[in-house]
């Protein structure tokens, strides 16, 4: 019989290495690079959020100090993260650290479910934090509610420089019971005149998450500041830019198919961890293929930023979509035409200026197109001679003609730049196509399993296994399958494909029962205890 855990220690001597594979060096520089990019992007975006929160707290603090007035409402800073909160735990750690160091505040972080499962637990946590700064003089009194009001009494007797504000941080606000939060706010609202209290809430969803708060009974007691510096799309853009559109040495290539897969997968799950895992897999699996086409990143970024000044985002609303078009070698002139045709002089000016002023790394193409842009810009500023003879019977005014000419020139200039991105890309054949990515990262295990059981193609030359035969009858049965009938069908199928002489030793029955046990184990059936000779079908597939 098998043991629960088999332990195999290292017994190799240093003299003879038995396995060369273990000594092969694995290149994980790309994986480390991806990890670093993710960490940097997160910290960059988190820093913005922290700055926003600190600004609001500073502003509130100043108001209180200068006016010597308390608030009528409890200030709430709602961070709309638009992604899975578990991936932003560092943000709240950073917030806690910054708030406690920069402001004389007592920070109470309610991060585990136990801590905010009831008001009693919330007050218990609060008491523990308060005791660090204001030790409890009467530790025997266990009534938490009473202690809070008692604390306020003692707090009011303190000198101004000894007083600290209370800041509650709730990273996963959506998992908190709203009625508990309402009751807690009602309790605190009695004390806001004496002590400064504010909240920092983390919200996974977007605007609709706030509705829960805004629609609650305590909305009139709150003053809500929403901070939108974080979104799933923002993280994605920053990561794509850092990985593929930056000047770093550890750049690796990605195909259009792979980028498309990653894009779809991320916006289905909104999980940065999934994105990281998928990119690492692609980077590691494709490590042997060298980048063939060097993308002119400076030019790419410059033209993208410039075109964003034009209406309707002609090169794609997001940088990643422009990059995807580039990778899949699709021209984007239709949108460019429409956009340029509907743009104003000011927009065209801004477009050209942003390109001219972009921080260039002395790229030859950038310099060339910069000069062209300057030329177009200067030409546009010159007056067109008012030539009444050339003005035909058209109704176009001089300014219209000028605008059209300007548009035409800018369009040609943009087209020239885009054309250099649509130069024929040598097809780098890679085995990491979309099918393989699906298979390795998001497989449909059930469909694959059932397809294998039902496909007869594999078995043309060999006998169909018992499990497949049993499954065939299984699919044709109802909820309760009588075992004797099932056995009869199975036996007839077995006899069709094999010659079985007088089954004296009941081998077919034994095979049937074994197959039945396997189906039980795999979760297809449940041997029914109510009607002993029936099996209950547990899965239904078309």
């Amino acid at each position: 019989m098998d043991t629960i855990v088999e332990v195999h220690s290292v017994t190799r001597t240093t003299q003879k290495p038995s396995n060369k594979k273990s000594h092969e060096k694995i290149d994980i520089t790309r994986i480390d690079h991806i990890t670093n990019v993710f960490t940097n992007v997160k910290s960059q975006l988190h820093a913005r959020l922290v700055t926003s929160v600190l600004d609001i707290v500073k502003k509130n603090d100043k108001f209180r100090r200068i006016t010597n007035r308390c608030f009528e409402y409890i200030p709430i800073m709602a961070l709309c993260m638009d992604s899975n909160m578990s991936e932003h735990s560092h943000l709240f750690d950073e917030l806690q650290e910054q708030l406690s160091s920069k402001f004389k505040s007592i920070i109470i972080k309610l991060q585990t479910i136990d801590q905010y499962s009831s008001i009693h637990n919330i007050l218990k946590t609060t008491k523990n934090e308060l005791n660090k700064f204001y030790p409890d003089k009467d530790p025997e009194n266990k009534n938490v509610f009473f202690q809070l009001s008692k604390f306020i009494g003692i707090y009011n007797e303190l000198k101004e420089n000894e007083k600290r504000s209370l800041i509650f941080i709730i990273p996963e606000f959506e998992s908190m019971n709203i009625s508990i939060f309402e009751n807690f706010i009602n309790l605190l609202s009695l004390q806001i005149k004496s002590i400064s209290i504010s909240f920092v809430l983390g919200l996974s969803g977007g605007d609709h998450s706030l509705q829960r708060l805004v629609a609650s009974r305590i909305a009139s007691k709150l003053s809500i500041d929403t901070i939108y510096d974080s979104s799933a799309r923002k993280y994605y853009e920053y990561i794509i830019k850092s990985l593929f559109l930056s000047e770093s040495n550890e750049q690796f290539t990605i195909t259009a198919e792979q980028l498309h897969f990653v894009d779809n997968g991320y916006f289905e799950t909104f999980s940065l961890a999934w994105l990281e895992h998928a990119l690492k897999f692609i980077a590691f699996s494709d490590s042997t293929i060298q980048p063939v086409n060097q993308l002119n990143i400076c030019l790419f970024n410059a033209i993208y930023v410039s075109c964003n000044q034009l209406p309707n985002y002609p090169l794609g609303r997001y940088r990643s979509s422009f990059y995807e078009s580039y990778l899949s070698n699709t021209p984007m002139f239709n949108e460019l035409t429409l956009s340029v045709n509907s743009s104003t002089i000011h927009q065209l000016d801004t477009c050209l200026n942003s390109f001219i002023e972009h921080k260039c790394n002395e790229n030859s193409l950038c310099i060339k197109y910069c000069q062209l842009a300057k030329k177009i810009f200067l030409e546009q500023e010159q007056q067109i001679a008012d030539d009444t003879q050339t003005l035909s019977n058209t109704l176009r005014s001089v300014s219209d003609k000028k605008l059209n000419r300007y548009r035409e020139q800018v369009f040609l200039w943009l087209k020239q730049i885009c054309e250099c991105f649509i130069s024929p890309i040598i097809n780098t054949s890679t085995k990491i196509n979309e099918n393989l990515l699906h298979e390795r990262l998001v497989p449909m295990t059930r469909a694959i399993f059932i397809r294998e059981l039902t496909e007869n193609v594999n078995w043309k030359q060999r006998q169909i296994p018992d499990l497949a035969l049993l499954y065939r009858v299984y699919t044709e049965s109802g909820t309760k399958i009588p075992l004797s009938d099932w056995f009869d069908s199975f036996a007839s199928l077995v006899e069709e494909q094999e010659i079985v002489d007088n089954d004296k030793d009941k081998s077919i029955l034994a095979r049937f029962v074994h197959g039945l046990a396997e189906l039980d184990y795999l979760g297809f059936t449940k041997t029914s205890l109510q009607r002993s000779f029936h099996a209950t079908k547990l899965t239904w597939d078309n």
Partner: protein
Amino acid sequence: MTTNRSVPIVVISSENIPNKIRNIDDIEYEVSQTFLPLKSTPSRKSKGRSLIKYKSAPPIPTNNDENNEIKENEFTRLHVISHILPRFPVRHGILKQKRKYTSKKKILTEKTSDNIMRPENMDKILLEPNLSNDDIDTKKKKKFKSNLIQLTPDDLHETALKIQEKSLHGKAHDYLMINILRGNEFDEWFRYLRAGFNILLHGVGSKKSLVSLFFKKYLKNEYLTFIINGFMPNITIKQVLQIISSHPDINANTLNSNEESIQEIIKRIEAKKLNIYLLINNIDGMNFRNTNVQNIFKLAAQCQYIHILATIDHIHGPLIWNQQSLTSFRWIWYTVHTWLPYIDETTNERLNTIRLKTSQLSISAVEHVIESLTPNARRIFRLLVEAFLANCNLKDYEGMKFTELYEQCKRSFYVNNEQNLRLQLIEFIDHRLIKLVKSTNDGQEIVRLLIVEQDIVKQLLDKLN
């Protein structure tokens, strides 16, 4: 309940008996009086109700003289008249019976086309022996049941081995390398594991031998490896953590909480920078399916020095993880259809399937029962188990004698008198652990253990100890 079904009615008209319409029930009843009644063929087993035909039809006196006087000009008509209820209230079972008279019905419906039936044909039809489909079914089921009861777990085990032998022809290595792994999957798996990913295998067939082959080729003697058999019904995460902690290379303290234990293990491993490989057969095993256990594995997977290669078999296996857990594990999924039989994995299921017929309990049920027993009861049961294990190899061993058991219990002060012992044994009987039988040799009372598999009994003894 009205049913729109055709009811054949035999109409006999004669000058002497004007317009006498006799229901088919009456005729059949008369027929049944002269012949042996058919076997009762219950359509339902419940409550031992047997449906006897013709119980409700009242006896109609046969007037043979009258019938004999029927002359040639009389004829019997057979009409199929629909939407007419039977004349007498009949039991549901009889209606059912009638519906199953397929041969009769066919003939009768055929004959109604010309509305003429010869008397001799009618006699033939009515007097034919009728075997209902139910009879055939019951015989088949009984035969199936009796054959099933005769199967033993050893038979099933041998069958499974034969099936495996058919595919492998004795060479598991060749079968797997040539037929299953078409490329350099092992290489890929090893690379991914070393790069920080974890591998998850899924597909039809047992992957246990594949995992052990991978271990032999790439990890044996090179890395500290733990092969965890998650399919075992008695495995617990605590045992796994204890075994890992107690390894001399890790030497971590086993703490009360599982989470603290795994964190302690991770700390030790990170401090020593020791790469360990966990090969988990069936990470979706019965005892691994709850969130707490998966959280332990998740913490292990997040450690850069712990590399996990696991297999998953259950059709709904991936549902044990939510999106967050899946990404924490960093799985790379591989589809591997070995089509090898699940031998070790289905031990419990095989026993359960047979045990249903012999009304025995499964391992977990017995263990549960033992846990609920009083310490004294457990001691008495242990005596039975020890006696079984000591004598099970003997051919004619029927069980422990009651007198012997009583002597031993009395000597060890488990019971004061015979009555107490009998009360205890009644409790065991109620729990379907034992049976009191009379010995075939000398007629003495024997206490027979209903669990016959030695492995399971040994497990029980360990539990009792």
